[in-house]
């Protein structure tokens, strides 16, 4: 009698990766369409509206690029931590703290010229973002506390802190009671690239992305970090102890998410308000895993997920479909890509039983 057995697969064809990805996306799309049908909406119309909303106009393409900027920064940070198998799911809170830090600088020194104020805002946002990442990192290396839960709790705390500030001490006295700060001064606003609605922040993305690639590819520290993630036993041979790597990775991760919060508040809202939080920190996890942690692929995946966000907004407008549809698609994509990873590493073989 013959039996089916699961075995490790050595053969890794060039086309298998993309094929699995496309298959996973197709399954995710199919199930999402089914969810639309459950709500009594036409799945065909829904997917059409989704895609035309995401890719059908130059406005949509540009809007996706705008949303890809914070997503890319958060995701790059999250991916760096994932490399070391540190599960930083706190990008959302680190993003909030970055927005808070930059808002503090913008509201405290509105008179500074832009070439002083913007760097100061960048420093403040990176500092608070990194701090928010370091708290779980320190608890992890000193006591071994599970970073997944702590980073997540820090999200709730960070967002509540932001709410406290905009509902309380930082509320604009001339804002008719709305929970938002006063408008930033011109020198605190990261301008758009002329002729587009995309801010100069995208240049920061490119620079950070290149630096990250160089770091992992050409520096010894980057190599040690990768090695420690793939095999924790190799860590003792590295120059920097494992705990040092954890602190480093969480600080950088938090600073990057902090920058995303800074850019989002400064260039898109021109002030701090609760709506600055729109879930980039959680979507970043999907992006990082989809891109299998490589900086270049994260760029592509950020754009695609940002386009999905734009498409879902269109669905909301045209077909009154709840925004939660975006969460469903993100969750499904992640589940399908995870399951699809199986066919990359294993295959099913018939063996004599």
């Amino acid at each position, binding site marked *: 009698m013959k039996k089916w*057995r*699961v*075995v*490790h697969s050595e053969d890794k064809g060039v086309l298998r990766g993309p094929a699995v990805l496309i298959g996973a996306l197709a399954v995710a799309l199919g199930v999402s369409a089914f*969810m639309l049908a*459950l*709500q009594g909406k036409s799945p065909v119309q829904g997917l059409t509206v989704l895609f035309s909303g995401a890719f059908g106009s130059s406005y949509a393409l540009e809007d996706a690029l705008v949303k890809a900027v914070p997503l890319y920064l958060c995701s790059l940070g999250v991916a760096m931590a994932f490399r070391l198998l540190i*599960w930083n*799911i706190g990008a959302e809170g680190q993003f909030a703290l970055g927005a808070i830090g930059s808002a503090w600088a913008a509201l405290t020194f509105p008179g500074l010229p832009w070439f002083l104020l913007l760097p100061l805002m960048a420093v403040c946002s990176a500092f608070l973002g990194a701090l928010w990442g370091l708290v779980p990192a320190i*608890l992890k290396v000193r*006591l*071994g*506390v*599970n970073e*997944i*839960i*702590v980073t*997540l*709790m*820090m999200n*709730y*705390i960070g967002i*509540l*802190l932001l*709410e*406290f500030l905009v*509902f*309380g001490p930082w509320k604009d006295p001339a804002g008719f009671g709305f929970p938002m700060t006063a408008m930033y001064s011109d020198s605190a606003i990261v301008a758009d690239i002329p002729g587009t609605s995309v801010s100069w922040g995208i240049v920061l993305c490119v620079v950070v992305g290149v630096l990250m690639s160089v770091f992992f590819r050409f520096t010894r520290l980057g190599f040690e970090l990768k090695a420690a993630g793939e095999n924790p036993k190799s860590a003792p041979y590295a120059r920097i102890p494992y705990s040092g790597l954890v602190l480093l990775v969480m600080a950088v991760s938090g600073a990057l998410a902090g920058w995303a919060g800074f850019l989002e508040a400064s260039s898109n809202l021109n002030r701090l308000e609760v709506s600055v939080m729109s879930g980039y920190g*959680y979507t970043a*996890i*999907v992006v990082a*895993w989809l891109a299998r942690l490589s900086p270049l692929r994260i760029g592509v995946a950020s754009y695609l997920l940002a386009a999905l966000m734009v498409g879902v907004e269109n669905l909301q407008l045209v077909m009154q479909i*709840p*925004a*939660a*549809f*975006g*969460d*469903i*698609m*993100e*969750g*499904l994509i*992640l*589940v399908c890509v*995870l*399951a*699809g*990873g*199986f066919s990359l*590493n*294993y295959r099913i073989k018939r063996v004599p039983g």
Partner: protein
Amino acid sequence: MILEMIVPLLAATVQSGTPILLATLGEIITEKGGVLNLGVEGMMLVGALGGFLVCQQTGSPWLGFVAAGAVTALFSGVHALVCVNFMGNQVVSGLALTILGTGVANFLGTPFIGQEAPGFDGFSVPLLSDIPFLGRVLFSQDALVYISYFLPLLVFVFLSRTKWGLRLRAVGEHPEAAKSAGISVPGYRWLGTMLGGFLVGLGGAYLSLAYTHMWTSDLSGGRGWIAVALVIFAFWRPFRAIGGAYLFGGIMAFQLRVQAMGTDLPSSFLLMLPYVLTIVVLVLSYKKGRIYAAPAGLGVNAEPEE
């Protein structure tokens, strides 16, 4: 006078601790089988909505309660499929389940926001509720709370006195050894995940059917994550989960009361309390080295042999 304030507070503590207790017990079962399921937050929401819809359609709270467990057990099957059969990363799959569950509940629940369902109401247990003090705290609750009093014992008996429970734990501790003893690792991991999902779903149903009687979005408010943390705090032991769950029930009841009384303290800080407490509780657990109580095979997929 003091008693007049403490009794309602403690009764509210038991009430808000109950969904957390149910979810924590569920996650204990799942983790005992070696499967880390971080989807609890999303699963609770799926259960809350499933229970609410069935109850609203049929008019039967009990049917809604059971349906919530069943729907959530099926939903947690996604996690089992991805991790047990497709060897997917357990952490990421759990996160995906949270994102997906939150999305599904908010998406399908949108038309029902603000609507009511019959749900469970409190009633006093004859005789027991006449016990001074304790009677009014413990025995003037709704039926689901009374059920929850028995569950830790039930879970304990299942895990340490039944054949299935012992095999589940073997699979969680030493998958390889269990396999050579002829126990089906995938089978028992599926069992643990779905049974745990069932209890988590009951916890979700408690939120929509007994706590609020109404559907609103984001009903769970982090309770799922608190449950994941409490599993560690509870040392993976069902009875220890009781203390942890009521501790958080207490802080939530306290926070609501202080808010209602009116205070100078900004509400944001009051709302932070459970999340800060979660971190504190975790730090204390690790300080005492409780992490060593984790099932040895937790979070590790059983590899197929070469």
